[in-house]
């Protein structure tokens, strides 16, 4: 929760959350290349 708009701490906290979310998005992309094809071409959904 925001205590004071636009202080330095908030800016850093925002950046941290954004980087985590961006990493999740990159993982999801990697997942489409690696994991899902493997599972789907042999395993769960033949």
């Amino acid at each position, binding site marked *: 929760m925001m205590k004071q708009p636009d202080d330095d701490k908030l800016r850093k906290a925002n950046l941290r*959350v*954004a980087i985590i979310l*961006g990493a999740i998005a990159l993982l999801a992309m*990697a*997942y489409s290349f690696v994991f899902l094809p493997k599972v789907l071409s042999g395993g769960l959904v033949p």
Partner: protein
Amino acid sequence: MSVATAHDDHHDSHDHGPPKGWQRWVYSTNHKDIGTMYLFFALFMLFFGGAMAMYIRAELFMPGVQLANPDFYNNMVTDHALVMVFGMVMPAAAGMANWMIPLMIGAPDMALPRLNNLSFWLLPAAALMLILSILAPYLFPGSGGPVNTGWTLLPPLSIQNGIGMDFTIFAIHMLGISSILASINIVTTILNMRAPGMTMMKMPLFVWAWFFTALLLIAVMPVLAGAVTMLLFDRHFGTSFFDAAGGGDPILFQHLFWFFGHPEVYVLLLPSIGVLGLVIPTFARKPLFGYKALVYGMGVLAVLGMVVWAHHQYTIGMSLFATNYFMIGTILISIPVGLMLMNFIFTMWRGSMTFETPMLFGIAIILMFSFAGVTGVMLAVVPADMQYHDTMFVVAHFHYALIPGAVFGLYAGVFYWLPKWTGHMYDERLGKIFFWWTTISFNITFFPQHFSGLAGMPRRIVDYSIQYTEFNMISSIGGFLFGLSHLLFLYIIIQTIRGGKKAPDKPWEGSQIGTPGLEWTLPSPPPFHSFTQAPVVK
């Protein structure tokens, strides 16, 4: 001080207004200006996608091939869908998120204002790419025919397509990056920028709806980006992800596409459910029934929505186990969907209702979206879907889901917030005419498609057997009327922007009941910088 650094140096930024001229828009880091640009972009794309729909209905008015060739027809079917989904509904919802989320939670702006600028300005570039993909066969003769795969872009056809497909793939890349960045921004804003006292469970439903939407987008949009990238590699770099001749599998693309595609339909739906969660209590003058259940319901919907994708592919010959799993999962989804609709009905129960335009849309959504829920459960049943799949019945289902479920929700939002955005009340009489005109013509357009579909008329085909003629003529007439109604929509919006009765801070009697957020504490229209001092919620 230059606009780009306005947020680096906030101390003196509240005593200047917006910068003048084009710089205000091109360099904008202001959530309201960017929201406005998103909304105008969506409005433009509504007419662009709508024009393609008018062509489709004109072609289908009679059996036979009338206006152009089958490839062009399929190109229009493809780009109508891509434009409406990625160019219209998503940007309009994102525009509303930009405008309203900071106001509702008491934030001075979005968490990452410059990223916000980038998210928007990727869109016109992507739109240009899409337009190029349509023009490619004519601009570059000999580069292959039009993109004729439908919005699902299925290989092997999409591998055989001409250069237009490459433009489509790049457009999807840009649209994907845009919505991932916008989603990151929205989640960060909701987590970090709430005013003191604005706990998560106090947030208006619209904010929650966008929270889940953004999380869904972050999870599935990259999968689509990955899939179309593989497609690009198959087309140009000798890989064979989807090419059976090289050991790949075209079915894999379907899984990847629908792993994105089914959650995507909830991405389109949820923001409008969020708008409903404001509109219904406002005009019933009663607090939302089951706020917590709605929040959890949306969470369940988002999670379930990610594990049922293969109900779009029952006919590919999956194992019995997989088929059963996807069938049961899909039918389970009607539980949270039903719960939401019930909560809205209970909110209206014994309320003192009035029927302004947003409320009319709200009630119409509940009725007509339920209809899509019913046809959805029919489609979820495997043996039944073997008959319905790839017929006009599916087209009827998803237009009942998407037009009431997503588009009407956006219209409700537009009428609900126009007074806040512009400072003027819209003309209620015209709003009501627009409501009845769209609702009636929408039903004339899509109701008959249930029948032609059940009778076996296939979708995505330019011609049909003569026994479907009457249904299609009715559909086309309805379609033209539906298209025409949007000129009135445009007129109402322009009229409201240019003038009209002055809107008070709380334009609706039940505003504060509908959404106990902070947007109503600001004047209509709100000042260029919303909350220079963090408001406190008690």
